[in-house]
C-alpha cells in the first residue's frame, strides 16, 4: 500500500506550521503526533495546514487535544486552516466547535501573530 499520509512541519516567527497531506487514521496518526511533538513548544501556537487533507479520523482529534490544551494554558492556540469543505462538519462536531478554523494558512498566522 502506498503512503497515505505525508506530514511536514516547520517553525517560523514563533508559530509551528504542520502541513497534513492525505488521510489521518488510527495508523497514520503517529506521523501527526511526531509533528506535534516537534512544534508543541512554539510560543504563539500551531497551524494545521489542511489544504491537502483527505480524511481525519477521531484519532487525529485525540492527538490534537492534549497539545491544544497545553498551548491554551500557555496563552497560545491551535488553528485549523484551509480545511476542505467536506471535512469541516466532522471536525467541528468531534471537537464540539472548540477549535478555530480559518480559510487560509495566512489567516491562521495572522490570528496567532496577534496573540
Amino acid at each position, binding site marked *: *500500500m502506498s503512503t*497515505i499520509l505525508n506530514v511536514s512541519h516547520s517553525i517560523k516567527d514563533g508559530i509551528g506550521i504542520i502541513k497534513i497531506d492525505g*488521510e489521518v*487514521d*488510527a*495508523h497514520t496518526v503517529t506521523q501527526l503526533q511526531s509533528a506535534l511533538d516537534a512544534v508543541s513548544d512554539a510560543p504563539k501556537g500551531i497551524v494545521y495546514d489542511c489544504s491537502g487533507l483527505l*480524511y481525519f*479520523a*477521531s*484519532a487525529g*482529534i*485525540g*492527538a490534537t*487535544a*492534549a*497539545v*491544544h*490544551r*497545553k498551548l491554551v494554558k500557555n496563552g497560545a492556540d491551535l488553528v485549523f486552516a484551509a480545511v476542505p469543505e*467536506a*471535512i469541516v*462538519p*466532522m471536525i467541528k*462536531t*468531534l*471537537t*464540539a*466547535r*472548540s477549535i478555530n478554523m480559518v480559510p487560509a494558512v495566512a489567516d491562521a498566522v495572522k490570528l496567532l501573530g496577534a496573540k
Partner: protein
Amino acid sequence: MSRRAEFFLRPDFSALVELRAWVRESANGFLSDAQALVLVQAVDEAASNSIEHGKASVPLHFFFRKAGFFLFFVMKDESVPFNPLQLPGPDLRARYAAGRDGGYGLHVLRNMIRVKYRRSPNGNCLFFMENIDVSQMVHDS
C-alpha cells in the same frame, strides 16, 4: 462497475485504508458525498475500536447489501463482547478541553448514523444503515 459484496480486514491499523476504499467504492452511486463521508468514518471508527479494544485476532468481516431504499453495511468480529452503543455518550467539549486522547469516535457511531448492535455467538455485529439518495443512483445493483 463490479462491487465486492464483502471484505475481510486483517486486524491491523495499517489495513484501515483498504477498508475505507472498499466502503467508498460500495457506496458510490447510492449516497451523497456527505452521507458517504459519515458512513466511511463510522465504519472506520468501529473497525479501529474493534482492533484496539476488542483484541481481534482474526480478520473482521464486512459486507454490504442494498435493500429497497436502504444501504446496509455490517461489521462482524470475533472478539470480546462489546456494545459501543451501551456506553454513555461522551461530552465532546469537556473531553477535548481536558486533552483526552480517545472516545471521540464513539460519538460518530452514536449520533451521526443509524447503527444497531447484536451479539453473535463468536463476537459482535454492528449494522450501519443509510437511506439511499435516489438522486445519486446510477446503478441497478
